[in-house]
């Protein structure tokens, strides 16, 4: 069926190495949540803990309100889809999918009936009598999904399931996973290092780094309003422009940067409220730059810049700009398709302040 998951202060250490550091997270029932981060960030460790393959060193796990911290995998209402699928090679597909049912004592006829139903859900009903080695990678993955869903778990855990597929197949499977999840309503917890994949399928994304959660939220919010420098950098290309807060009033803060003075509404400060004298880093995405005079809404001019290099990407030009006021800095900006950008060209850049996010600078 489905159930919410609650992780309270979970820590996992392996000897002197801390894989998870006091991680707390609440997952809603029926949510498709994605754990996103680079290798070694702890996402797979967290998933293993949810599945019961690892116990947290400290902390609690609850599923559906019930204490589950040390419950073995067989007794948890979770099933896992492994990265290498782990389909039993000596069994036919219908026996693979029906394995969990067999362990629950379901009679053969009914087992096969239900197994075929789940194979149908993933579009492989006609292959019920085949063996895994006769299938392609994408098909095997669907069988693994069917097998995991066949026991009607409350939570489905997916361990980088799309990593071995090529791009086209991956996009297709992303859509299918999303569709199936909506159909069955089970809580899905999906681990990946690919931020595009995360944005494509997640209801909420959990960005992790070095055992800690950096940011949690729907894709658009994490992308547009990240709450940590790491999350900002991980979700896509971003320009980090350091500055100092010189003045704060009721609705705005003035930040002095090498590109000039910028007046930012307080909503730009996603992590902490601004105070005078604080160092802050402005995060501006390449696609948010405008040529002065263009664009809609209130734009703040950021001075002149020269185009150091540019490459045509089809939908836009990706340019490296050298600001006149800070020639040692390089800014990455996307110029529109129609701009006909040329190297050496001088442009004036501007940005809509609403698009800027200001985050506390990292302590050196």
């Amino acid at each position, binding site marked *: 069926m489905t159930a919410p998951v609650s992780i309270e202060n979970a820590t996992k250490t392996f000897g002197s190495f801390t894989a998870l550091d006091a991680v707390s997270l609440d997952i809603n029932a029926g949510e498709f949540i994605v754990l996103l981060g680079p290798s070694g960030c702890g996402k797979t460790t967290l998933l293993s803990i949810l*599945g*019961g*393959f690892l116990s947290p060193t400290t902390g609690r796990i609850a599923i559906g309100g019930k204490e589950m911290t040390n419950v*073995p*995998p*067989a007794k948890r209402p*979770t*099933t*896992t889809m*492994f*990265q*290498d699928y*782990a389909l*039993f*090679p*000596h069994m036919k597909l219908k026996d693979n999918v029906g*394995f*969990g049912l*067999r*362990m*629950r004592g379901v009679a053969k006829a009914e087992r096969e009936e239900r197994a075929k139903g789940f194979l149908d859900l993933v579009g492989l009903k006609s292959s019920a009598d085949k063996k895994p080695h006769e299938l392609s990678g994408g098909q095997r993955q669907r069988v693994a999904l069917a*097998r995991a869903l066949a*026991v009607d778990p409350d939570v489905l855990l997916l361990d980088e399931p799309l990593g071995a597929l090529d791009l086209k197949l991956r996009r297709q499977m992303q859509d299918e996973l999303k569709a199936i999840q909506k159909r069955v309503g089970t809580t899905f917890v999906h681990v990946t290092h690919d931020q595009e994949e995360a944005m494509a399928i997640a209801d909420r994304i959990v960005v992790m780094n070095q055992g800690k959660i950096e940011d949690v939220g729907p894709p658009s919010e994490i992308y547009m309003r990240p709450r940590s420098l790491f999350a900002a950098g991980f979700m896509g290309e971003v320009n980090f422009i350091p500055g100092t807060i010189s003045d704060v009033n009721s609705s705005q803060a003035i930040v002095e940067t090498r590109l000039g003075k910028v007046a930012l509404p307080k909503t730009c400060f996603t992590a902490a409220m601004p105070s005078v004298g604080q160092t802050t880093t402005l995060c501006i995405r390449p696609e948010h730059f405008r040529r002065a005079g263009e664009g809609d809404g209130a734009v703040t001019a950021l001075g002149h810049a020269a185009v150091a290099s540019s490459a045509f990407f089809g939908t836009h030009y990706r340019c490296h700009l050298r600001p006149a006021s800070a020639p040692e800095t390089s800014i990455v900006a996307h110029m529109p398709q129609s701009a006909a950008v040329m190297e050496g060209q001088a442009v004036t850049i501007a940005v809509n302040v609403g698009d800027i996010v200001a985050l506390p600078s990292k302590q050196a």
Partner: protein
Amino acid sequence: MAAYSLEDAERRKAWGFVAPALVWTIVFFVAPFLFMVAMSLWAQQGGSIVHVWNFGNYIAFFEKDALFRGLTNSLEITAIVTVLSILLAYPLAWIIAEQVPQKYQRTALILAILPFWTSYVVRSYSWLLVLSRNGVINQTLMNMGVISEPLELASNRTATVIGFVHFFVMLLTLTIYANLVQLSPNYRRAAADLGANAFQTFWHVILPLTMPGIMTGAFLTFVLCIGDYVTPQILGGNNELVLPQIIMLQLGRRADFPMAAALSIILMLAVTAAYIACARWLKIERA
């Protein structure tokens, strides 16, 4: 079209490389084997070989009880040895793969197969030291007062079986362990995840997946056991001879090469039958 191309030169080179091995195999294996087949269809009379084609040797095999029983003894002993060795070796392989900590597994495995490195002849002889009337077992039991007369443990079929099982347990431990250890740990996790307890995981998932290791070992056991002369000769006594012993007897006093050849062909057919059965089984498992 050029009559000579890069590929032709390459191919000629390749033939040159593979030829020595092929020639050796043909000259020293295939040709002698074919010659033996021919020899089996001749007969030995009065010290020399009569080159008349006939199936006399084969007919004699089916008619003479002593000869035929050689094959049945061989098959029975081999079957018992194979089954016993599998039953004893599997738990040992499992223990080394599962219970022994990772970094000691290699050591444990090497220890388990260390006696392989005694000479084969010496190894069978060692069992004689253990099983004979004045051997270790009898002396120990008599000293403890458990028995008053020594047990007839050597020079019979039991001793032969013990000698064989000792050897093949080590071989099977090796093949089964190799199979166990390369199974992805995710199979076990997936089975547990889906609700299987330890026994169910073993019975439904692990055991079937180690069948290749068992069958490889069983096949090797069968081939090596049925063709072995040394162990039965040292431990088996004079009563129930196996086929290799009977073959050697033909060579000994009577120098009856044709008969020896015929019996060898029969032995070879038994092995081929096992090979086909094994290949068939593997295909069934695959399909």
